[in-house]
């Protein structure tokens, strides 16, 4: 963990500098879907696209971190909660996944490489991400303060674990597909993250520039859905040729 944290800190400082610049922590680009580990059908096809936001983005709430000096020191200026991150009309932190269209009965094996969520500067990084059923979720604490991470799923079994010291790691898994499982910290109520639990590896999260890419798909016509924590969902239908790329553009408006 310690190897990563300087970079994450840098990322956080960047975020803090410009309110609309960063998407929080290590969420640099779209989280790459894990390489499919056999079983269900895969292919050379892909879906790429952009998640857009039309209209004026709502202001993100500020966070008063004065009580956590150690966290506050990792930021500068006014700290905001990056709920809606829009860069030039492109929306970051939307979870995009194949909702339907995969062959019936296809099953995919989860990779054993863990997905990492870090608690750094009293924010979650990444803030939105996907994981496969059975894939380990490694929870890290890079802050010298207590965080507890509480999953409040509806279909899965919840957990509520604490990490009182810096550098702690804990691993958990989910056993049922669920979009999305909210993660929260009871000590710092501003801390929120969301994880999409998938039975297949075809999902992505839009990056800073709103782009996403889902690879390894067999040819076919798919319904994809983009989920955003504040703005709801958008769906699109995409046809993917064998070995080619389908494209999609999903546009959110201001929250109703």
């Amino acid at each position, binding site marked *: 963990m310690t190897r990563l944290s300087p970079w994450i800190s840098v990322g956080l400082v960047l975020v803090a500098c410009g309110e609309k610049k960063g998407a929080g922590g290590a969420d640099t680009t779209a989280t790459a879907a894990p390489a499919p580990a056999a079983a269900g059908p895969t292919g050379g096809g892909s879906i790429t696209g952009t998640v857009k936001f039309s209209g004026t983005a709502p202001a993100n709430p500020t966070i008063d971190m004065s009580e956590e000096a150690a966290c506050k020191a990792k930021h500068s200026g006014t700290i905001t909660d990056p709920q809606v991150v829009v860069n030039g009309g492109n929306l970051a932190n939307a979870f995009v996944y194949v909702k339907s269209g995969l062959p019936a009965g296809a099953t995919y094996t989860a990779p054993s490489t863990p997905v990492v969520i870090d608690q750094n500067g009293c924010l979650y990084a990444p803030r939105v991400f996907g994981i496969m059923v059975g894939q380990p979720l490694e929870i890290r604490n890079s802050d010298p303060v207590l965080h*507890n991470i*509480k999953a409040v799923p509806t279909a899965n079994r919840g*957990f*509520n*674990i604490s990490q*009182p*010291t810096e550098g*702690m790691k*804990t691993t958990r898994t989910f056993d049922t597909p669920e979009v999305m499982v909210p993660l929260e910290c009871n000590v710092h109520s501003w801390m929120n993250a969301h994880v999409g639990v998938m039975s297949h590896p075809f999902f992505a999260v839009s990056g800073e520039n709103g782009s996403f890419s889902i690879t390894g798909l067999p040819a076919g016509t798919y319904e994809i859905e983009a989920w955003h924590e504040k703005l709801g969902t958008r769906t699109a239908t995409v046809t993917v040729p064998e070995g080619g790329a389908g494209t999609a553009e999903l546009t959110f408006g201001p929250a109703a």
Partner: protein
Amino acid sequence: MTSLATPVESHVQAHPDNRSFIQKYIFSTDHKIIGIQFLLMSLLFLTVGGMLAMIIRWQLGYPNKPLPGGTVLPETMAPGGVILPEFYTSAVTMHGTIMVFFAIMPLLVGVFGNFLIPLKIGAPDMAFPRINMASFWVAVPAGILMIAGFFVEGGHASAGWTSYAPLSADPEYTGVTAGQRIWCVSLIVLGLSSILGSMNYITTVINMRAPGMTWFRLPLSIWALFITSILVLLAIPILSGAVIMLLFDDVLGTHFFLPAQGGQPLLWQHLFWFFGHPEVYILILPAMGFVSDILSNGARKPIFGYHSMVYALIAIGFLGWIVWGHHMFQSGMNPTLGTSFMISTMLIAVPSAIKVFNWLGTLWGGKIRFHVPMMHALAFVSMFVIGGLSGVFMASTPVDIYIHDTYFIVAHLHYVLFGGSLFAIFGAVTFWYPKMFGRMMNPTLGKIHFVLTFVFYNLVFFPMHQLGLQGHMRRIYDPTIYDFLKPLGGLNRFITISAFLLFASQLLFAYNFIVSWFRGKKAPANPWEDTGLEWTTPSPPPHGNWPATPHVHQPPYEFNSPHVKESDFLPQTQSLDAIPGRSSAGAAH
């Protein structure tokens, strides 16, 4: 009561013993074996509870430092040896639960209720030997369950030993699902064991006293156990009912203590403390009884004010039912109720004071022998005074506002439960050890153990008063979070070091206990030159206790009676008429 010139031949009680090993030592109906079984089980739990205390102390003294040897604990408790907050709250919960329900309570009631009642009242066994056996074998699965809870997913119950709802009633609040349910089931099962046991004790004391053993010839230990059994009988079902409702809230989705549909969190507290305050006296009354027996023996004098001692016991047993609200002064209960509970609580100090002064009166003008049980009994008196006096602070509602839920309370309750009950237990175990096992414990080791325990005990718990006065809250994982507690770090570390030394000192007791069992000096029938009935039969007593029903002629504490010159004690079975040239006049009290 008639005085009998010679011991009367009555029907034979002790029969030839041709039981198999299992009948004799495992599924035994003999009250003495059941008492020893309870003793071994609760000493085991005392050790577990003590280890949990070490975990708690380590975290408070050295927050977030790896526990020495803590790496053996699983990752869900202490990754890398660093104790997790959820494991800390679990440890706090289980330290309380195990010490109260599985160590102190069975040590006082299960062990000595079983062992002493028939032996001291002159009965061959309990009224219901098979129910007695059942009460032990029901407690065993309860204990196994309680230990098993540590190893289930989500960890053990972590809502405190008081299990305040809603924290305990909905797994969402703690993340503990199975552990809390196991806690509930285990306590319900243990409650059944306690009810069976106390029903047995009460029936035995009422119906099975030997001829001549009138109510006011009962030793105070038996009076105390009798009153305690009544408290157990009436209080435990309240706990069972409350815990069942708590379990239903969690498992069946009922709403007793969950406010969403009109349930009341405070209802749990009322039920729990309606049970809980009598429970507090369950944990101290027998200790008072044993100490009275031992003090009188050590001082070689009759107990001072026997009758007022009995009435004080009864008064405490009665008043114990109307003071439960003093645990709830700051709970949001109607403040007017607070005032009435304060008055009743203040009044309960009176019988306690009577007992203390009577113990001092017993020592006054005596000829004090400092044997190991006596040392523990004296420590009990001294420590109980501190625990009792510190209770006055929290009985005063305004002062309680400040010290409620602080370490002052922790200090107070440990002065009563460790300084009080546990010293009495050490005293009672050493006092009746020869009768239980037929061998003496090593007195030198016993004295070293006593001194170390007494010193380290006070070094651990006395400074806790100061912690509390500075506002140190209970059950907090890391006090350094608060600026006003930061200056207390040194004191916390001092307490932690003392606590580890206190724990280490107990190894001496364990060693003495185990080794004496096999290697100890053979015990005579009456090693302490005591007057009680149990000392008139061999150590250990045979199945059936006496060849013939003993007849009682004397009050319980006739030491240095002017009616005998040959020795300084007059056994309860001794008729003055049997001594040439003596009359019974004057001895009857």
